[in-house]
């Protein structure tokens, strides 16, 4: 039976049938209004509660991720701060060992200089001129009357001459003594300078130490903030991690570019060694061999940087005793050197093969043989140098790689937290939408059954009005 047939209550009168069906539906909706409202509200509440629960779970997960991020970040920050402070202390130790360990000898040198200066000073002290005893005799003679006494005049003249001679002699001796003292003082000058220089050096050292101490103090404050797990420290470290992430990613991209160039430099000559027509899977064996060589160079670079304690990707290498670590440095460096030499030779071979291929192509194209370009050895040498340098350059990839790995933990963690936050918001939104959708459905339901609802409201209003009127009558009667 068709749909029209079902609603065809009065055959031949579809309009009447339709109206009757509508009326029946309205009556049914009105009768089922209470349970229908309950069902709709229940459904919307279930959906709302479900979404709220999911949002709560996701929010909790986000909080856990955020706490974990903070822990990781603070741990990494504490580690970095410890390394920095340790390095600063090592520098201070170096300065103290280098300069202040020689302090006793320095003190001795200074004491010697002071003794020298003291002796010289004593020697340069002014010796008083012996008191001229004869001055009194001259005074007595000078008071004698010499008028008319030629003998007395001649005596005084002689005395005068003797006094002048004596004065000259004394003055000369005095000048000599002063000159000698000046010479001694002149000798003191280098001692003074040396003392001054020594004290200046000590002063510089002390100033440097003070600066370092200030720096260490600042780092220690940061370290304390990290240890106290303050939000400020976490925020600072997050910002630092983001910066490091992007910078190290950029450097890694540059390194990938270098690796690609390196690959192209050795892939063709590798086909001369492992065969140009053989495959491993869907890749040429020569390409895989070239790739493996580059990867081994990278691995050696990582081990070398680890052994030098520049990076800390493999704690087991950093924990080795110094003797073993030095051996490791030499082994990895030797392998890198050998690989660099091999690459250089492969680059030379590549140049030869490329030249041969070019010559063959010219022959096949029936082009007249071109003259060899002037300075054609320049690209050959350039390729060889590149082949030699690139392995060492790739070895330094370990530094940005470590930075990238460490910062990516924070960045990825932050991204996951952001995604979880967004998901929680979305789930809350969906929950609220479900709740309001339930209310909307109830209203739509009432809209469909509005004729009987209107009648119900009307009758109720009427009854209320009648009750009110009856009440007023009773009150009037009582009054």
């Amino acid at each position, binding site marked *: 039976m068709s749909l029209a047939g079902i609603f065809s209550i009065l055959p031949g009168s579809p309009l009447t049938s339709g109206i009757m069906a509508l009326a029946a539906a309205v009556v049914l909706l009105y009768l089922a209004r209470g349970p229908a409202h309950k069902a709709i509200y229940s459904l919307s509440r279930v959906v709302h509660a479900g979404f709220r629960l999911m949002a709560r779970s996701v929010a909790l997960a986000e909080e856990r991720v955020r706490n974990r991020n903070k822990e990781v970040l603070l741990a990494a920050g504490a580690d970095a701060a410890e390394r920095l402070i340790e390095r600063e202390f090592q520098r201070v130790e170096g300065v103290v060992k280098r300069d202040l360990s020689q302090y006793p000898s320095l003190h001795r040198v200074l004491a010697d200089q002071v003794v020298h200066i003291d002796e010289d000073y004593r020697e340069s002290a002014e010796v008083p001129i012996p008191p001229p005893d004869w001055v009194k005799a001259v005074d007595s003679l000078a008071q004698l009357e010499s008028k008319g006494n030629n003998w007395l005049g001649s005596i005084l003249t002689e005395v005068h001459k003797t006094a002048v001679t004596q004065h000259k002699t004394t003055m000369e001796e005095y000048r000599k003594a002063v000159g000698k003292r000046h010479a001694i003082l002149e000798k003191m000058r280098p001692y003074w300078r040396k003392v001054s220089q020594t004290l200046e050096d000590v002063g510089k050292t002390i100033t440097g130490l003070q600066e370092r101490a200030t720096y260490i103090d600042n780092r220690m404050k940061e370290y304390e903030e990290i240890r106290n797990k303050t939000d400020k420290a976490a925020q600072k470290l997050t910002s630092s991690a983001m910066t490091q992430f992007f910078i190290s990613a950029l450097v890694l991209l540059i390194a990938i570019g270098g690796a690609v160039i390196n690959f192209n430099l050795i892939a*063709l000559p590798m*086909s*001369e060694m*492992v*065969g*140009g*027509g*053989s*495959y*491993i899977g869907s890749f040429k*064996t*020569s390409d*895989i*061999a070239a790739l*493996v*060589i580059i*990867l*081994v160079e990278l*691995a*050696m670079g990582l*081990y070398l940087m680890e052994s030098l304690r520049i990076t800390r990707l*493999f704690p087991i290498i950093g924990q080795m005793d110094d003797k073993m670590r030095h051996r*490791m440095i030499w*082994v*990895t460096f030797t*392998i890198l050197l050998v690989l660099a030499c091999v690459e250089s030779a492969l680059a030379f071979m590549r140049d*030869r*093969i490329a030249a*041969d*291929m070019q010559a*063959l*192509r010219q*022959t*096949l*194209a*029936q082009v007249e043989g071109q003259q060899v370009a002037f300075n054609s050895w320049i690209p050959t040498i350039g390729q060889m140098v590149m082949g030699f340098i690139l392995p060492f350059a790739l070895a330094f990839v370990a530094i940005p790689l470590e930075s990238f790995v460490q910062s990516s933990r924070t960045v990825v963690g932050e991204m996951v937290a952001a995604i979880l936050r967004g998901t929680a918001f979305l789930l809350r939104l969906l929950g609220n939408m479900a709740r309001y959708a339930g209310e909307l459905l109830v209203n739509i339901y009432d809209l469909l059954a509005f004729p009987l609802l209107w009648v119900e409201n009307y009758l109720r209003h009427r009854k209320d009005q009648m009750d009110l009127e009856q009440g007023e009558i009773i009150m009037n009667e009582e009054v």
Partner: protein
Amino acid sequence: MKKCFGSVILIIIFLFLGSCADTTSRSTGVYMLLDSSGTYTQELKQAQAIINYLLGTLQSGDSFGIAKIDSASFSEKDIIAKMTFDKRPSVTNKQKRLFKQSVDTFLASVKKGSAFTDITGGLLQAAEYLNETGAGKKYILIFSDLKEDLKKGHIRDFPIQVPGCEVVALNVTKLRSDNVDPREYYGRVQRWEERVTEGGGHWRVINDLNRLENILGS
């Protein structure tokens, strides 16, 4: 240290695997048939350009053979040059030079065309050669007008077997009789297509020799 030694061992394993890897499944085999009958010998100059292009395109480990189509082509005697290139590129280059030299010598020696044209025999010989090389991709290039003219007594009227071979007809020139009735040309090409397709091969016709890169393309 262990990791370091591990890496070195890994390289050795890779290189060892590389030396033992299968070389034939991915290589290309090309066999070119040159029609040296009648007036078609004038077209052989164009064939030289195709051969040079193929020599420049084929890689180490690929196989290349050239044979002429004459009165009875199902014979090794008609092979002008054939070679499977070495795995090393430097040796491959030397082989290509020798190959070119052989072809140039042959083309210089062609003065008079053969009286008959045995294309079927050449195809059978080509399929046999390519199957022997074990190449992964097999191409048979027919540089001919596709007009077969068999010697009396030679039987070639049977289905040919070229499974997995890409048969490419190059420079299929129109004969004087084709100009009179073009249906003859289309019928000839159609017949060869049917024979190749029934024999398990794929058929293509390339008359524009300015697009040589299409020869070994799909």
